[in-house]
C-alpha cells in the first residue's frame, strides 16, 4: 500500500496533502430543500464530512440529482447548512459577509447568457468587484490583476474580443480568469468541462492542476468525468441520492461494486501503474 502511495507521489497530480493544514473543512454538513417552509423536504443532502488543503484538487462525483451542486453551494456560502458546518481557514463560510466571501471563494457556475455584449477584459474586471466601494471605478491594480488572470489562463490574445464571439474553450478560460481576478484561496467549479471536447477537458484540468500546485489554490470540481477526475484529483467525494457515500483518494473510492451501484451501469475498474484507477464500460452481452 505504501509503495503504491510512493508511486502515486511521483505521478501526475500526486497526493500532496501531508504538509499543508486543511483549508476548507466540511463537518457533518447537511441540507434540505422543500417547496415551502411547512412541507416535507423534497430533497435532502445527508451529512457530509471531508477536508481539503491548499494545492489540492477535490472532485465531487455522482449521478444527476445526487446533490453535487447543493454541496458546492454550501461550500460557497450561498446556502446555510441545516446542520454541521463548513469552515474556510477556521471561519464559517455562511457567516462571512458577501464581499469578504467573494474575496476568498470564487464559484465558477454553469454559464449564463449575457444580456448585452461585453468585451473580454470588461468581463474579467468584474472579478475585482469585491475589492472596492459599492459604486467604484477600476484602479490600475485592478487592471494588473485582471491582466495577470488572463495570462494565467492563456487568454491574453482574446482580451479585446466580444464575449459572444469566443469558442466554448476560450469562453471557459475567460470565465476562469474572472474567478482568478477575485484572487480567492478556494476555487469552486460546477461542471466546468460540460461543453468542452476531450482536448479542451484535459487542457482545463491540467490548468487547474497547475494553478493548485503553483499558486496554492484549493480547487473543488463538480464533474461527471470519472476518468478525468481519477487522473487529476487528489481526493474524490462520491455522492449518491443525496448521501455522501465515500470520500478518499481515487483508488480508495473507485471500487467496482460501489461505482456500479451508484451509476447503475456495468463498469470495470483497473488500477494503473501510477496508482490511479481507470473506469471502463464492461461490454454488454
Amino acid at each position, binding site marked *: 500500500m505504501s509503495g503504491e502511495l510512493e508511486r502515486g507521489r511521483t505521478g501526475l497530480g500526486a497526493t500532496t496533502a501531508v504538509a499543508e493544514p486543511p483549508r476548507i473543512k466540511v463537518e457533518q454538513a447537511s441540507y434540505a430543500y422543500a417547496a415551502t417552509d411547512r412541507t416535507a423536504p423534497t430533497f435532502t443532502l445527508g451529512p457530509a464530512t471531508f477536508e481539503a488543503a491548499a494545492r489540492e484538487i477535490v472532485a465531487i462525483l455522482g449521478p444527476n440529482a445526487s446533490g453535487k451542486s447543493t454541496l458546492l453551494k454550501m461550500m*460557497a456560502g*450561498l446556502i446555510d447548512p441545516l446542520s454541521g458546518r463548513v469552515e474556510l481557514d477556521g471561519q464559517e463560510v455562511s457567516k462571512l459577509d*458577501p*464581499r*469578504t*466571501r*467573494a*474575496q476568498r471563494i*470564487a*464559484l465558477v*457556475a454553469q454559464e*449564463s*447568457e*449575457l*444580456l*448585452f*455584449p*461585453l468585451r473580454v*477584459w*470588461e*468581463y474579467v*474586471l*468584474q*472579478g475585482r*468587484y*469585491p475589492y472596492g466601494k*459599492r*459604486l*467604484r*471605478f*477600476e484602479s490600475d491594480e*485592478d*487592471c494588473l490583476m*485582471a*491582466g495577470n488572470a488572463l495570462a494565467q489562463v492563456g487568454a491574453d490574445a482574446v*482580451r479585446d474580443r466580444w464575449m459572444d464571439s469566443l469558442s466554448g474553450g476560450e469562453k471557459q478560460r475567460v470565465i476562469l480568469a474572472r474567478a482568478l481576478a*477575485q484572487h480567492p484561496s478556494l476555487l469552486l467549479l460546477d461542471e466546468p468541462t460540460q461543453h468542452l471536447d476531450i482536448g479542451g477537458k484535459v487542457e482545463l484540468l491540467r490548468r487547474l492542476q497547475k494553478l493548485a500546485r503553483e499558486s496554492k489554490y484549493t480547487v473543488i470540481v463538480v464533474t461527471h468525468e470519472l476518468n478525468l477526475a481519477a487522473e487529476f484529483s487528489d481526493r474524490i467525494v462520491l455522492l449518491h441520492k443525496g448521501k455522501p457515500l465515500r470520500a478518499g483518494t481515487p483508488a480508495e473510492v473507485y471500487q467496482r461494486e460501489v461505482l456500479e451501484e451508484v451509476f447503475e451501469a456495468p463498469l470495470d475498474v483497473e488500477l494503473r501503474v501510477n496508482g490511479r484507477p481507470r473506469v471502463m464500460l464492461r461490454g454488454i452481452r
Partner: protein
Amino acid sequence: MKPLTPQRIARICGLLAVILFAAMVVSLRMGTYPISVRDIVLTLFRGAIGHRDAVPSEFWLVVFGLRLPRIALGILVGASLAVAGAGFQALLRNPLADPYVLGVSSGAALGAILSLLAAPHVPGAIQLASFLGAAVTIAVVFFLGLRGGHLDSPTLLLAGIMAASFLSAVIMLLMAMLPGRDLHGVLFWLMGDLTTSPPTTRVPAWFAFLFTIFFLSAGAMYTTATDLNLILSGEQEARHLGVNVNRVKLVVYVAASVLTGLAVSVSGAIGFVGLLIPHAMRMMFGTDYRLLLPTSALGGAIAIVLADTIGRTVLAPTELPVGAITALAGAPVFIYLLRRRMR
C-alpha cells in the same frame, strides 16, 4: 484594457449637455413670436444673473413665461423616462422593457381619468391623482412580483403586464362614460403632451420640487450602477461576486417606478423615449451603467425637447402631442437600429 473613468463620463456628459443647451435655444427660438438667438441668449443670461429690468417685457414673457417652463418640463420628463427605462431593462433583464411595462403609466392614467370625472377643474388634481394612481400600482405590482420574500424578475414582469392590461380595460370602460370634451383631454393625456400648465403660479418652486424628486431617484439608482453591470452578466454570478442582489433590485424598482410616476403625472404617457434612448446610448457609448444612466438622462431630455419643438411648430398653430411625435420618429429609428445590429 481601458476601464471607464469619471473623466470620460464627464467628457461625454459635457458634450451631451452642450447639445441639450443648443436644443433648448432652438426650441426657444421656434414659435409664432419671433425672437433672435442673440436675444434668447441675452435674456437667459440676464435672467440668470437677476437683471430682469434690462429685458424687454415681451421677451421676458415669451422666454420665461411660456417657452422655458415647457422646455424644463420636457427635460424633466425625458430624463426621467430614459433613466427609468434603463433601470427596468436591467431589473427585468429584458431589453424590451420600458417604463410602462409594469403598469405604472396605466395606474397613473386611471388616476387622471378618475380626477377628470370627479374634480375636472381643480388645479393640480390631475397631477396628484395620477401620481397616486402610479403609487398604488407600484405597490400592488411589487407585492405580486415577490417570490420567497424577494423580487423575482420573471414574476415581476408577468405581474406587471397583467396589472397593465387590467388597468387598461378599466380605462376603456371609464372612457366610454366620459363626455366628449373631457375625452379629448384624456386622449391627449394618454398620448402624452407637455401643454399642461403648472398647477401653481410659483413656477420656479414647482420645478425645483419636481427636479428634486428626479435627482433623488436617479441618484439612488446611480449608486447601484456597478452592481447593475454585474447583474446584467447573470444574477447568480453577481451574488457570487458579493453583490447584494435583493437590495439592488429593490432600490432600482422603487427609483425607476418613482421616476415613471413623476414623468407620467406631469405629462401623460409619452412613448418610446424610455425604450429607445437607453438602447441608442448603449449603441453609442457601451453598456456600462455608470455611463449609461447619465447619458440616458441627457439623451432623453434632448429627444423630448426636440420632439416637442417639432410638435408645436410643424402644423402651427395646431399643436401635436409630443407622444405622437416620439412614437412616429421613435419606431422607425428603433427598427433601423435593430436591423443594423442584426447585420
